């Protein structure tokens, strides 16, 4: 059996390892489109920026012989097209790789801002190791950085930029930081924190154009204001890396559409990770959940099925933890709540603490926290297992900080 995996990220590597566990004899090849020294975790990039690790610290696996020992071939090269009729993948360099089972795990690509000047040399995004290297190379104490975007990635790299002494301005189109991860009051608290730590936060504005100005850049905003900059960082979100699949016949909406077994519409072809659109276990809707734990779990399920088993993905749960200059925030599931559902919001602005719990009938469906690091995992436990809360729902509405006690008292009944 020839297993071919396109993409050497968290999903691709997890699937390869799982396949080896299930099938000692199979041939397993992972196509690595970036050609770095070893497969790495994008998630580790913020810590490279803040100089807490060296590049090798981003590698997905520690043992240099890991892939050789497991007989997983890491093949450098980019897929240009998939031919499902002939069961082969064509590479950009002209080579052709055949497969019996194919897993597409190409992750996301950064969205491109449609403004004049976006291709100037001082303009970067922050998605790959190469991006991180380029940023680090031009960042000195006092370097003026104008960053467009304050989503998850935009917020988690602030620490790295500031730790290297950047003079940082963050532009936020919606006016709210991480607006797709937490409620307005929580967003505002993070923005307040960043401002207090010396970040220039500018809401309700965006870039109109970027121009070269001698050795630096001139960033004109939609408000007409002009900001001088040495680096322009464009971090305005990501989208699935599926362009190379156009015309392949693989069904795609926002991402590659998969069923609970991670199968695409075509036989023998699977997808997992940021690139796959699957069922969200809280909302029941088909959607992309571009987070690491989701990528790993989908990959595990895909591999089980590719090896001939029958395993269903129980659905992804949106879970995020963010550290913005030392302020730790988390959000889980339907943090926005649902219409008619009960909810409670605790806001302690002076101490930068925030906690919101959102309920369905008798279960927790979403949560957001700022300033909590102890036992936050149980919020996931309660949501994912739909644990009936009984008397604890009222207790939590009265005092949401007792979530750990509520968990201990009610957990696992539903499991």
């Amino acid at each position, binding site marked *: 059996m020839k297993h071919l995996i396109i993409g050497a990220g968290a999903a691709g590597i997890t699937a390869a390892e799982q396949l080896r566990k299930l099938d000692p004899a199979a041939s397993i090849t992972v196509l690595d489109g970036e050609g770095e020294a070893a497969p790495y975790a994008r998630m*580790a990039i913020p810590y490279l920026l803040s100089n807490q*690790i060296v590049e090798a610290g981003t590698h997905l696996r*520690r043992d240099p012989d890991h892939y050789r020992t497991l007989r997983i071939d890491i093949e450098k090269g980019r897929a240009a097209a998939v031919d499902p009729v002939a069961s082969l993948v064509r590479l950009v360099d002209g080579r052709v790789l055949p497969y019996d089972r194919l897993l597409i795990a190409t992750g996301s690509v950064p969205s491109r801002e449609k403004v004049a000047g976006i291709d100037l040399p001082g303009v970067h995004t922050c998605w790959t190791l190469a991006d991180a290297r380029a940023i680090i190379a031009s960042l000195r104490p006092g370097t003026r950085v104008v960053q467009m975007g304050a989503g998850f990635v935009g917020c988690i790299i602030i620490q790295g930029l500031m730790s290297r002494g950047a003079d940082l301005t963050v532009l936020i189109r919606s006016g709210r930081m991480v607006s797709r991860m937490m409620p307005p009051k929580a967003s505002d608290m993070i923005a307040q924190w960043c401002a207090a730590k010396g970040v220039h936060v500018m809401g309700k504005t965006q870039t109109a154009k970027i121009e070269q100005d001698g050795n630096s850049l001139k960033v004109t905003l939609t408000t007409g204001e002009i900001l001088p900059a040495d680096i322009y960082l464009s971090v305005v979100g990501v989208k699935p890396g599926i362009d190379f699949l156009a015309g392949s016949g693989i069904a795609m909406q926002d991402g590659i559409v998969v069923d609970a077994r991670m199968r695409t519409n075509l036989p023998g072809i699977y997808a997992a990770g940021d690139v796959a659109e699957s069922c969200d276990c809280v909302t029941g809707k088909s959607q992309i959940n571009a987070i690491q*734990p989701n990528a790993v779990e989908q990959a595990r399920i895909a591999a089980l099925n590719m090896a001939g088993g029958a395993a269903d993905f129980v659905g992804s749960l949106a879970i995020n933890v963010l*550290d913005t200059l030392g302020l*730790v925030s988390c959000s889980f599931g339907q943090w926005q709540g649902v219409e008619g559902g009960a909810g409670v919001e605790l806001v302690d602005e002076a101490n930068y603490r925030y906690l919101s719990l959102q309920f369905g009938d008798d279960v927790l469906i979403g949560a957001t926290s700022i300033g909590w690091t102890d036992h936050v995992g149980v919020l*996931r436990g309660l949501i994912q297992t739909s644990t009936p809360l009984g008397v604890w729902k009222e207790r939590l509405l009265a005092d949401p900080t007792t979530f750990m006690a509520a968990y*201990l008292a009610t957990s696992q009944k539903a499991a």
Partner: protein
Amino acid sequence: MQKSLHIDANKCTGCLQCEMACSYENYGVFITAKSRIKIFDFENEGRKVPYTCTQCAEAWCLMACPVDAIRLDAVTGAKVVNEATCVGCKVCTIACPFGTINYVAATGKVQKCDLCDGDPACATACPTGAITYVDADWTGFDKMRAWAGKTDNATRASA
């Protein structure tokens, strides 16, 4: 057979010897806030419940770690954090549905129970036998259910 921590909340008096022992074992100081095992105090019911990682079979924390910083100790079965590798991303802390791996701001890393290389200090320190280290082949979920179930009954009885 691998051993695991067995918790009998009924025997716990809340003396915090386990928390002291854990803190001393790992950090050389008696500061219960640093402990990886926690005693939860259900004040209304007058019950104390010791709680820590059960080294669950699913190993959500280990699976979620992006940089291979959590390893399985083949001898004890413990999931052990390698602090030198951990980047402090905290993804494990929201992946573990039991809330038993936690971020420590002072070190910028996470901590969890590692079974003290097969000689857990909390079990040795516990004067009442509420925490014991015994042969067991049950899964993490079974263990959780066993602990939580007891708490649940008590709560219902008083609620």
